């Protein structure tokens, strides 16, 4: 089979498909992890998922990441550090506790943390926060390393710098492979793991898939001794249902890395593929992070980077066979959660490819669900 896209999701699809006994070619017009994978933070989160299909996928993925960490953990900088979601107000904490109760019912481990305990978990947190919830299953990897090591471990034939120009289909409509700028790659199955560009690859097969980019900035501080132990983020947005509809949304997400710098996110904007720097966004991120961790006020930001999350209108990925094109599979549109959801996605795609019953119901992820809605 051919996997289009050598990012995190494509690498995971390649790995699980290869382990299921398939011959895999992994093709990308750029390098490994050259798109959204290389522009994220490497979060493996269950904490930020509402109960529902995405949370089931996140739980499956978290388990699979834990298994992969047995072989590749050090190489991919796997850190089962846990996530700490903090609320600044009693109302925010109430909403967070309600979310956590629903997640717990779905199988997530959650540990309520009262205000007095927060700083024993995170000594540098700002005083005066209302409380929080600890999510021990949250973890982190270094995403570029993770994509590269999973691709290597798959044993797939890697074709980088090779652009897919068409999805080849036979007289019966079924997939026969892909045409590239350097010749055809023939295979009875093609997996669209092109992330934010997944809509373009779908179009090459003649089907619509409304993947759109949602821009996010990350700030990188100077290297520091470990001062932020967990992935820490504010829960206010959970309660903040009255958020204005301005294009820009920011909520502070702060975490240390194995290499020393602290990473600060997360912003969301729908501005197409605009790569220009935005001072207002970066300023809002820095201010939000400093409210959580006042010591950051004296810390220098070395650089910023940005990426484009691939989002679909209902914020769920497209995952599984495309009933419109026999042999075409999709594994894209994971928005800001693609690193975390990659393992489960790869596993489910491999199960679907080998004719088995995927261990999660793929119905909510059906790639043709948008077309149906449009004609309904």
């Amino acid at each position: 089979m051919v996997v289009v896209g050598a990012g995190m999701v494509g690498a995971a699809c390649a790995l699980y498909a290869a382990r299921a006994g398939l011959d895999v070619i992994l093709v990308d017009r750029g390098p490994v992890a050259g798109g959204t994978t290389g522009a994220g933070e490497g979060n493996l989160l269950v904490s930020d998922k509402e109960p529902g299909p995405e949370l089931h996928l996140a739980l499956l993925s978290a388990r699979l990441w834990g298994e992969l960490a047995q072989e590749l953990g050090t190489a991919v900088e796997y850190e089962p550090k846990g996530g700490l979601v903090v609320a600044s107000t009693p109302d925010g904490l109430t909403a967070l506790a309600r979310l956590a109760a629903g997640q717990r019912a779905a199988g997530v481990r959650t540990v309520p943390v009262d205000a007095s305990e927060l700083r024993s978990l995170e000594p540098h947190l700002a005083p005066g926060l209302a409380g929080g919830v600890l999510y021990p299953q949250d973890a982190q990897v270094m995403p570029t390393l993770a994509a590269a090591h999973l691709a290597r471990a798959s044993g797939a034939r890697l074709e980088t710098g090779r652009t897919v120009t068409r999805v080849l289909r036979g007289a019966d409509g079924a997939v026969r492979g892909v045409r590239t700028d350097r010749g055809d790659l023939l295979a009875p199955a093609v997996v669209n793991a092109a992330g934010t560009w997944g809509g373009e690859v779908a179009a090459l097969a003649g089907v619509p898939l409304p993947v759109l980019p949602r821009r996010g900035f990350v700030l990188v501080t100077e290297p520091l001794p470990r001062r932020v132990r967990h992935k820490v983020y504010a829960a206010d947005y959970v309660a903040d249902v009255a958020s204005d509809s301005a294009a820009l949304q920011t909520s502070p997400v702060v975490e240390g890395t194995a290499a020393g710098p602290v990473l600060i996110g997360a912003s969301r904007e729908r501005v197409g593929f605009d790569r220009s720097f935005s001072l207002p966004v970066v300023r809002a991120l820095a201010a939000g992070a400093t409210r959580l961790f006042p010591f950051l006020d004296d810390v220098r930001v070395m650089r910023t980077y940005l990426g484009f999350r691939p989002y679909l209108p209902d914020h769920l990925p497209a995952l599984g066979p495309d009933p419109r094109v026999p042999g075409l599979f999709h594994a894209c549109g994971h928005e800001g959660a693609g690193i975390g959801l990659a393992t489960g996605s790869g596993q489910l795609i491999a199960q679907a490819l080998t004719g088995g019953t995927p261990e999660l119901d793929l119905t909510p992820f059906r790639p043709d669900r948008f077309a149906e809605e449009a004609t309904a």
Partner: protein
Amino acid sequence: MNPLELVRARAGTPFTVRFDGREIEALPGRTVAAVLWSAGVTAWRTTRDGGRPRGVFCGIGVCFDCLVTVDGRPNQRACLVPAEPGADIRTQEGTGHDE
């Protein structure tokens, strides 16, 4: 040949900075890295992992290899920061922050 003569530069009045406590002569307009190089110092940081020596690598502010502590502020890029009279420049160990 003295590079100043080579380009017929007329340097301003020299001043001194301190590097790890000793006085070093500096010319106006030079970066911290240039001042240290002129004094024969090529390494002023140790890596976080393994304590290996580091100095200028790219020299244009991109690589963050030449980090140094200036006037108590760690992680200054020596290749970009101008040397100022009386500056207190110190070898930076690891992150430059207290563990």
